[in-house]
């Protein structure tokens, strides 16, 4: 049996947007914890941010089973790297390259890993933040987002991101975007995680929720004076 060309892949359990920004001390990633099954929010505690080694964090949107497979691959990569015991450790730039190779090669076989990956890290003072898509498109930037985040969060980042933000400023900016995504992305829920990587190490928060605002006067009676409208 030769290798079969598989062109009938669709995602089943999916995660929505991942956001990433550089700030003064390192990188911040954010995502919600929903695993959707079509239009059903089937799983509400899916971790879509993972630590890779000591200095890199990975976030994924798209098919969760493929993200789990990628995490396994990277764990094996990191373990093998550690076993060399040569004073060298894979940094975020190397992981980015590795992931790019994996995603692009699968795309060439018409059997993609159905994910958009956000990778962030800092090694020897050099900050890195980048993205690899399911077809192997990859780039680095000061702020990145996947899926809906590209349309809703990136414009806010372009307006309000600046060099060397403090942790508070970075978190506030991400929370602002997460809230917009919760309002406007049907696959999003009000349960989020953030990941922070600095020279000091990696922190991935426990899930948290944001305060929502429905107290706009116009929401009370939106069709006033125009019955039948919405």
């Amino acid at each position, binding site marked *: 049996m030769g290798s079969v060309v598989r062109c009938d892949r669709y995602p*089943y359990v999916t995660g929505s947007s991942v956001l990433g920004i550089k700030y003064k001390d390192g990188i911040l990633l954010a995502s919600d914890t929903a695993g959707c099954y079509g239009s059903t929010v089937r799983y509400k505690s899916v971790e879509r941010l993972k630590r890779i080694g000591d200095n890199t964090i990975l976030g994924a949107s798209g098919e*969760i*089973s493929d993200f*789990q497979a990628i995490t396994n691959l990277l764990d094996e990569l990191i373990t093998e790297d550690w076993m060399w015991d040569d004073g060298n450790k894979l940094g975020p730039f190397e992981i980015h390259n590795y992931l790019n190779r994996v995603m692009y090669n699968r795309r060439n076989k018409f059997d993609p890993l159905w994910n958009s990956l956000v990778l962030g890290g800092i090694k020897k003072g050099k900050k890195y933040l980048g993205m690899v898509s399911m077809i192997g498109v990859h780039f680095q930037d000061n702020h990145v987002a996947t899926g809906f985040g590209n349309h809703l969060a990136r414009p806010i980042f372009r307006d309000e991101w600046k060099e060397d933000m403090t942790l508070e400023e970075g978190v506030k900016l991400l929370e602002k975007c997460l809230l917009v995504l919760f309002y406007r992305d049907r696959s999003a829920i009000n349960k989020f995680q953030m990941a922070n990587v600095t020279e000091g190490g990696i922190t991935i928060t426990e899930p948290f929720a944001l305060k929502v605002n429905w107290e706009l006067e116009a929401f009370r009676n939106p069709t006033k004076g125009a019955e039948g409208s919405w």
Partner: protein
Amino acid sequence: MEPMAGGWMSAAHSMGTTILAVEYDEGVILGADSRTTTGVYVANRASDKITQLTDNVYICRSGSAADTQVVSDYVRYFLNQHTIQLGKEATVKTAANLVKELAYQNKSFLQAGMIVAGWDKYDGGSVYGIPLGGTLLRLPFSSGGSGSSYLYGFLDQAWRPNMSKDEAERFVVKSIALAIARDGASGGVVRTVTVNAHGVERNFFAGDKLPLFHEEISPGRNPLLA
């Protein structure tokens, strides 16, 4: 859908199904309906969708009957060998990972939504959901199959951690019965399997043992003959 159209005579066996597994204070309880359909025809009204993988690990099967039978058979075979080599009983995590591996690596071919649940001395009672695609998620409870759509609201509201065996079993039976009430692809009896440190217990709930819901009536004498 035309019942008389020949489609159902040749359609694949599918388990429309409602399946459920919950962790309770001492272990896990698995539950399922018993209807297998080929198109609109009920091919088997008393199927057993809760299948044994090892002495202490069971699997709930939904989706294609053939696919899930083959996956269970392979995993039972692997676990059998693994237990001999290991010298002690396999863990629920191992069983679940084997099922996941088959489901993920063959995702283009399989239509299988499964729940692996059981008890081992390291993690106590564990429930692992393995939906289409081969994602593996350990959860306090998991539901699946076409009937599960009708249960999301009920489970969200009624599930609590650390229920007693009786509470948990009543919870599982009520859930499956609610799904059977609304899902045409689920029906028949409710089967439960309880797994804990002491062993395994199978139960069977049928007919008047099942709770009645909105607009359902209990059997009785014909009104004309009253």
